[in-house]
């Protein structure tokens, strides 16, 4: 997990999973996202970097339509997952969110048991036919969340009783339990210590095998460590995106270079 890997990392030519074209987001009169067009590949980790308030989290929340829950928020433009327009009136956001999982900045387990936290999604989507089925899903998800060994003996203890890093991994396990195709992560490590961060980052690398992962991060080192592609946002604009190695070593736009070298931000 060192930065050297950027260079070695060769990017497979995966097909495009999410295609965004000319996305505009308004919070009331505030034009928060301006003309963002980006392609996110399948089975890759894409990092969104940029200074605070640049709209990277807002754009992330457009991908699973979490912005719908904010009354004043309006989204224009076109976001397609596997060529399907997710802002089509026929698309039910609830169904979309089962397909596009999300992990939040602050670990937010339900105030229920560890088991129920993970089992909630499969339960409401009817993914398990029997109790044994559900047990399997819970175990598989907790294993994918790299937390199974720590909690297998206390599945019925409250999820809120875990440490911050464990809670975040529990939230990741909860997000993967519904078998999503895309996993959105909004600064998943900002509330964690370096050890927990390392565990989560390792996990993200694992998850790449099955999902297309989009991660918002403030830490450029983290972006460099975990992602294959990076997009740089500045003041609501997507300045540039491309292979992580290229963005960090040879950015095209001077703003990207200034941000990466620490001159703006």
């Amino acid at each position, binding site marked *: 997990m060192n930065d050297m890997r950027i260079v070695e990392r060769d990017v497979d030519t995966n097909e495009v999973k999410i295609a965004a074209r000319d996305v505009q987001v308004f919070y009331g009169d505030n034009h928060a996202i301006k003309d963002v067009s980006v392609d996110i590949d399948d089975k890759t980790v894409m990092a969104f970097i940029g200074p605070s308030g640049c709209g990277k989290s807002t754009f992330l929340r457009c991908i*699973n339509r*979490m912005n719908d*829950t904010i*009354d004043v928020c309006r989204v224009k433009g076109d976001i397609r997952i596997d060529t399907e327009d997710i802002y089509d009136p026929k698309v039910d956001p*609830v*169904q979309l*969110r*089962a*397909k596009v*999982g*999300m*992990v*939040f900045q*602050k670990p*937010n*387990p*339900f*105030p*229920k048991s560890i088991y129920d936290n993970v089992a*909630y*999604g499969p339960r*409401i*989507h009817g993914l398990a036919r029997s109790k044994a089925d559900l047990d399997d899903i819970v175990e598989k998800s907790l294993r994918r969340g790299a937390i199974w060994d720590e909690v297998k003996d206390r599945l019925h203890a*409250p999820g*809120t009783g875990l440490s911050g890093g464990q809670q975040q991994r529990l*939230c990741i396990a*909860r*997000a993967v*339990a*519904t078998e999503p195709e895309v996993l959105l992560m909004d600064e998943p490590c900002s509330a964690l210590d370096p050890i927990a961060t390392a565990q989560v980052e390792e996990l993200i690398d694992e998850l790449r095998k099955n999902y297309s992962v989009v991660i918002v991060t403030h830490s450029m080192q983290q972006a460099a460590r975990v992602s294959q592609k990076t997009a740089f946002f500045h003041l609501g604009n997507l300045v540039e995106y491309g292979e992580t190695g290229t963005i960090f070593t040879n950015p095209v736009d001077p703003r990207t270079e200034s941000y990466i070298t620490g001159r703006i931000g």
Partner: protein
Amino acid sequence: MTDASMTPAEAKPKRSSLSVLDARTRKRNAAETRFRMYGVAAIAVGLLFLMFLFASILRSGIPAFTQTVMDIEFVLTQEPFEEAESKMLKTGEYQKIFVNALQSQLEESGLEVAFDNKAIQRIVGKPGGTIRSYFLENPDRVGTPVSFELAASSRVDGYFNGRVTRENIVDSRFLMASDLDLVDALEEVGIIHSAFNWNFITGTDSGVDNPGGAGLGASVIGSFFMMLVVLFLSLPIGVAASIYLEEFAPKNRWTDLIEVNISNLAAVPSIVFGILGLAVFIQFAGLPQSAPLVGGLVLTLMTLPTIIISTCASLAAVPPSIRDAALGVGASKMQSVFHHVLPLAMPGILTGTIIGLAQALGETAPLLLIGMVGFVAREYPEGFLSGFTDANSAMPAQIYTWASRADPGFYEKAWGGIIILLLFLITMNAIAVILRRRFERRW
């Protein structure tokens, strides 16, 4: 770098000792101590008032729970029974039988006190009717010893409670000073004594001239049916309204207006709800007067704002991250509310509801206008359904009615009624606390 131009003396402020308080710190500490003292004083004053309140309620109300009774046992044989039944003034004959029995018992115990029928009437009223109806209902008891427990009049009760003394007694047709000798004599032989007044708790209201026979039971039932109506209407309506307002409704001028008005409704004087109830439920909808159903409807209107406000507050207190988490795994809005938000808000909702119910339980003014105050609840409702529609009183209404009656015996009953009302309120608040604890333990 302006520091560079400074002389060393200016750059280094005078070193102060940590063990010596400077004037500013001393002042701040004094202010803090003063503030604590104000707090302690405020709490002490509050506790003092509370103690005074409880002491005066208990002192005035406890006598309502005791009743001076006259225990007398005698045998009515067949012959005087038939003779009495054949007379024109039948209860008068029984009265004579009773007085004779009393006379003989006093003589047996060696007490020689002269008394007449009038004195007995002043002490226990006219028990002839009670005795007659007992024997008519139980003819097989004729010829066997039967003991009667007869409630003494309110003045005699007062004499036992210390309200009436030999010094302050004024001879009247209710009680003469000379009767007290008889009462003392009866007490000495154990015929008259104080007993716990179950009738006060289980009985029904009596007429204005009989405070001894007045009980709160019927009005407790009335209050119970009102609370059923309030609970089953205001809880679902209130919770549904607040869930919609807080979770689903768009935040715009209309919902703001509605929320402000709900808050204002909570501050509307309860008598306004009373007159609204009179106009809408009784005059327009034609529901029966004095019925717990109407009382419950009026109190529902009054309780709704309280429940809506507390429910909205506890829903708003649920962290938004929980809603995000639920939506993030693909729960619908309703699933996120009912599976996650509502359980977390439950303790607050329950507390608000029970506080609202307790408030409704003690409310008198609206009942005044729908005819529950002043209604003499002489009978229990016949069944469950008629409990809602039969005219009845309610606890606070009953207390109000008693307090406005002339006989000082009723004044005592009013205080006693307040004790029972307070017991109910304390119980409800205890339930609120227990439920809160229970639900909070489920994280």
